């Protein structure tokens, strides 16, 4: 026999209690994993941003457009390799709740700047040549059951009017963290529509995307771009794509913080459940611990006995929790609309954190009962009944 066997047998002594504790921990660990996944999903745009891309927007707010003429001027700034642009088109597809991202993009080189958007050259060509051609993400194609050749009617809000696009391509993300919920269409289609409806708004782009070869030059290049337009009617603000995406995330920061706090409250709950079990268990066995001491077992033996049981329960609970997190996250991803969480992956870091918090709870939960078992005098322990 080994001391491990005693730990194991002790755990099986109150099968129902141990089972409930394991279940409680598993549920809490799963909740933790889920919360962290929501947060990482939200941050996925920031994580996925490329270091070599800068974004130039209007200095007052990104909702104001910039003149198309800036493209050539920015392209001349030393260190800039390519400049592309896009407009936030929005509009209403079917009804107001279908809010995936819709952009009018520069058909000439938008895809050169976004290697994570994987689409065949033929489809790119099709979008360039067909004024109302659009390329949609694979998830959007799946959700709305769209295929190449289908028409999409969009009711313009920022850009009033009825717009009809035809799907000429479907793109895939380069990796799991790439957003597959965009709709990209030829910017010239938008511009021509505006020339007729409201000529004052034609020839304008929402923001520029600037490819710089060397990410280390970003500060200097950003400053150089912004300097070009100082004191012009449309001053610019250039930042890295990461900062740009971060500013969107931080706008909803409060909710993220709330979820963050909740996820740590969960660790507290795991601790409470486990500690309760360990305290009850250790109290019932005070007499046994005293007997073990009379047999010559030392304090460290008792600590490993109690700690071992606590860790055993928490690791089983943690493992079970992690195991059920996988099907549950993918289940949730399937159920909620894709645009809510364009990317919803259980990250390795989340799994590690979840497992680590279960183990940490295992150690902490044993601390108090183990201290009490060690400090109880043998004679007092023996006198204890039951």
């Amino acid at each position, binding site marked *: 026999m080994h001391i491990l066997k*005693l730990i194991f047998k002790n755990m099986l002594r109150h099968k129902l209690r141990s089972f409930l504790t394991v279940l409680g921990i598993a549920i809490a660990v799963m909740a933790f994993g889920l919360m962290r996944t929501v947060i990482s999903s939200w941050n996925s745009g920031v994580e996925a941003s490329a270091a070599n891309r800068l974004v130039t927007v209007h200095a007052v707010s990104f909702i104001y457009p910039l003149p198309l003429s800036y493209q050539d001027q920015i392209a001349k700034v030393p260190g800039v390799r390519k400049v592309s642009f896009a407009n936030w088109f929005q509009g209403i597809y079917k009804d107001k709740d279908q809010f995936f991202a819709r952009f009018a993009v520069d058909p000439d080189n938008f895809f050169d700047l976004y290697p994570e958007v994987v689409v065949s050259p033929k489809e790119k060509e099709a979008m360039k040549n067909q004024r109302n051609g659009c390329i949609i993400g694979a998830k959007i194609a799946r959700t709305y059951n769209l295929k190449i050749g289908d028409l999409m009617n969009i009711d313009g809000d920022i850009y009033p009017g009825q717009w009809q696009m035809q799907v000429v391509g479907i793109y895939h993300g380069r990796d799991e963290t790439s957003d597959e919920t965009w709709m990209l269409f030829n910017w010239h289609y938008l511009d021509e529509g505006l020339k007729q409806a409201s000529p004052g708004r034609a020839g304008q782009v929402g923001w520029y995307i600037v490819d710089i070869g060397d990410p280390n030059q970003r500060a200097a290049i950003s400053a150089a771009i912004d300097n070009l337009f100082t004191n012009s009617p449309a001053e610019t603000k250039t930042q890295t794509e990461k900062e740009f995406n971060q500013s969107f995330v931080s706008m909803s920061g409060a909710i993220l913080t709330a979820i963050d706090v909740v996820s740590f409250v969960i660790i507290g709950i795991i601790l409470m459940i486990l500690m309760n079990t360990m305290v009850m268990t250790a109290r019932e066995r005070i*007499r046994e611990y005293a*007997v073990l001491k009379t*047999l*010559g077992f*030392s304090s460290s033996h008792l600590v490993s006995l109690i700690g071992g049981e606590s860790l055993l329960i928490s690791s089983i609970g943690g493992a079970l929790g992690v195991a059920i997190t996988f099907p549950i996250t993918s289940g949730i991803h399937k159920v909620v609309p894709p645009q809510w969480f364009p990317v919803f992956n259980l990250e390795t870091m989340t799994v590690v954190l979840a497992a680590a918090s279960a183990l940490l709870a295992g150690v902490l939960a044993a601390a108090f009962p183990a201290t009490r078992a060690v400090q109880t005098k043998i*004679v007092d322990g023996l006198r204890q009944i039951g």
Partner: protein
Amino acid sequence: MSLVSVQNISKSYWRDSQEIRVLTNISFDIAEGDFLGLMGPSGSGKTTLLNLIAGIDKPTKGSITVSSTDISKLNESELAKWRARHIGFVFQFYNLMPVLTAFENVELPLLLSKLSKKERREHVEFALQIVGLGDRVHHYPKQLSGGQEQRVAIARAIVTDPTVLVADEPTGDLDKVSAEEILKLLERLNTEFKKTIIMVTHDPRAAERAHKIRHLDKGELS
């Protein structure tokens, strides 16, 4: 040369800033191979005295020497190690681990030694044979009778071949027949295996088995 030497020990407890004297200036010796019975009414301090000799409690004053080690000077962990080597304890309520089989219960103290698995098994089987339970090796405590449980407890106490075997009311919870068997077993351990035994009891029939009897009354030896 005595095996156990108790010199001038006193023991008091403090309860609500009031001192309760349990033992006062007690001295006596126990020679190797003795079978000593400690008798006395309830509250006379006999269990306390036994606990002091077994090293699970410490005297307020005085010293206890067991085979030339002054155990009142040992610290907590030295004492634990010392107990594992020198003391075999038999309790009134057996105190077996309910989740372990007879074999595993007896094996427990050997886990603290450096014996190999095979050696441990030999020791355990031998001890269980001595107490006459060679056929109950894989039974759990709740599948045994009171007398059998106590015999497992005795096997657990002797499996390490301790210097001293201490027993606190070993027959206190048993019927007459079982009690008789346990006493016979203790006697045999004393005569056949030369174990030094200290037994606390208030049962005169139990005390008859001992070679020597000391009486405790109100914390003093008579």
